[in-house]
């Protein structure tokens, strides 16, 4: 349905996106996961024809969307990372304007506005100025403005940044509904791996402008099939203990957390026994030891050696 091939973008000396290729099939929900500055926003700006790539192609329904962007623009809903609304106007006035830009008018426009307002749960606040909304409400209207023209493809650039957990949960459920019930194709970018895990059928992981891995969640977890993640919870931190763990040839990562250490190591039968031994030698009191299924966070860590939110 929508595909980018060999997409690159340079800004003076900075190469923001390097040879990125990705595909969106009709009705699927695809995640673009990566830390801040990974090149996600630049990639989706190019995908939505808002930014011309230095090289590469954007293909929509087998046609070059960079040369003929009109059809893609008609079928595309973009939810920008910023609150792209006129805050001095009411939600209703904003929706009237953005609806008209897509050729909606009259009764059809008003009906559609009521529909999207109900969808985002803001029908009763539609006459309020956007500047008087909470962060979560702004985010919801930001999404509503992208849904007025019944887009076939919805591209969302970190739509839950900086909002409370309740609004975040509302938005995630809404996206799931749009994808599963309304069969809208969704490209969802985030640096929150749990959101991508919850929403997306397939995932692309980006770092430093490149796609470093892609596939379903289990495909990505399989990248770590030779390794396992162990949570080592301790009563107190111990530097010598940490150094001992790092010195172990089979342990690839040791990440300090509030409760203790997260250890990523090669799979082997005596790993837990060794961890007990290290604790005993360095007089560390263990409070818990748990083997965990690898998360996307672990996959990212495995691939880059860094945490997603570093």
């Amino acid at each position, binding site marked *: 349905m929508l595909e980018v091939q060999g997409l690159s973008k340079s800004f003076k000396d900075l190469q923001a996106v390097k040879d990125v290729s990705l595909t969106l099939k009709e009705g699927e929900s695809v995640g673009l996961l990566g830390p801040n500055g990974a090149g996600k926003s630049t990639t989706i700006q190019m995908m939505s024809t*808002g930014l011309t790539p230095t090289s590469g192609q954007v293909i929509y329904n087998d046609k070059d969307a960079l040369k003929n962007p009109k059809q893609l623009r008609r079928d595309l809903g973009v939810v920008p990372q*910023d609150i792209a609304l006129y805050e*001095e*106007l009411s939600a209703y006035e904003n929706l009237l304007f953005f609806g008209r830009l897509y*050729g909606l008018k009259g009764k059809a426009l008003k009906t559609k506005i009521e529909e999207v307002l109900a969808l985002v749960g803001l029908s009763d606040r539609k006459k309020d100025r956007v500047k008087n909304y909470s962060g979560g409400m702004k985010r919801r209207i930001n999404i509503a403005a992208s849904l007025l023209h019944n887009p076939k493809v919805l591209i969302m650039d970190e739509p839950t940044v900086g909002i409370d957990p309740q609004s975040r949960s509302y938005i995630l459920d809404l996206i799931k509904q749009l994808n599963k019930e309304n069969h809208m194709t969704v490209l969802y970018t985030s640096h929150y791996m749990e959101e991508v895990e919850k929403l997306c059928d397939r995932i692309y992981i980006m770092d430093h402008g490149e796609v470093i891995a892609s596939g379903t969640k289990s495909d990505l977890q399989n990248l770590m099939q030779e390794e396992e993640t162990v949570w080592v919870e301790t009563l107190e931190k111990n530097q010598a203990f940490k150094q001992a763990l790092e010195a172990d040839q089979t342990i690839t990562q040791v990440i300090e957390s509030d409760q203790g250490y997260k250890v990523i190591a090669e799979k082997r039968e005596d790993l837990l026994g060794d961890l007990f031994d290290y604790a005993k030698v360095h007089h560390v009191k263990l409070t818990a030891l748990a083997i965990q299924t690898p998360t996307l966070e672990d996959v990212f860590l495995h691939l880059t050696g860094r945490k997603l939110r570093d």
Partner: protein
Amino acid sequence: MWTVFMMQWKRLLKQPFVVLTFFGLTLLFVTFLGQSQTTGKVGVQTYTDDLSNPAYTMLIDELNDSDQFEFRQSDRTTVEERIKNNQLSFAVELNEASFSFLVGQSSFSQPLVREYLTEVYQEKRWLDANDLTESDLNNYIPLETTSVDTAGDSIQYQTQVVVGMTLYFVMYTVLFQMMSIAEQKTDGTWERMMLSPVSKMKIFSGLFLHYFLIGFIQVGLSFVIFTQWIGFSFGNHYGLLLLSISLFLTAIVALGLMLVSLVKTPQQLQAVIPIVATASAMLGGAFWPLEFVTQPVLLIFSRIIPIRYGIETLSDVIVRGASMSELVSGYGFLIALTVLFGAIGVFFLERKQG
């Protein structure tokens, strides 16, 4: 185009502060400066020890034929007291055949008064010597030449003030309103518009027309109010007046587009606008006649400043009733600047998009 156009008006009506402020400032400055010129005679206190009351009054009446000065009768004691108290810079003692100054502190108008009185007294002496009256004098000296020049200067000055200040403040209004484009580029609404199926041409046209109309309404209303308040006459060449205003405003909107395209943030634009507007007004003749600018480099700069051609063409229409053929050159420059600024603006906006 109309969707974008109407939206911008809706936004303006919610936040009309900038437009109203600059409109108010235009009225304030023009009214103040315009009226100060039209009724601004320099007052001169006089006294006499020599002349009789009727002769003193007659002489004062004669002196008050001047467009520049208003001579007032007083007495020595009063003026001495006022000079002592720094309430007066100088006063003039008028005698039958001469005059003298009683000076407390120097004043820029004293030499002008001296020059004027010298002329009047020389004329009186010449008339007395030849046993002539003032009415005889008109047969010899074409006095009206001087008076016509002075009136011409006054109209020229007032036009300079009315047109210069109006165009200066409307530049501010339009450019500050165009900051909204820079804000939209930052907050994402610009991108949202650009990603819609509406063509860029229609979006730019809607915005262009909106900013043009804001300026046009401000200039139009200002001119109507000046006609009523200070009795300023704009002549009767309304077509050319409208054309001059329109071409000037088109160039200003194009200039705004260029500035928006060259800055990265609304804050940068906020800093740039006063510099551009004030420098333009100084070099383009809004604050003083362009004849005062003598530096060749500055004169070259003034050639790429729309306000120069706006003032020139409007002044020519108002003062001289200039015809279309006489204004072609100024209009040509305004159109050329519109194309230049507009092309740079669109080029850089597009390049950033790319």
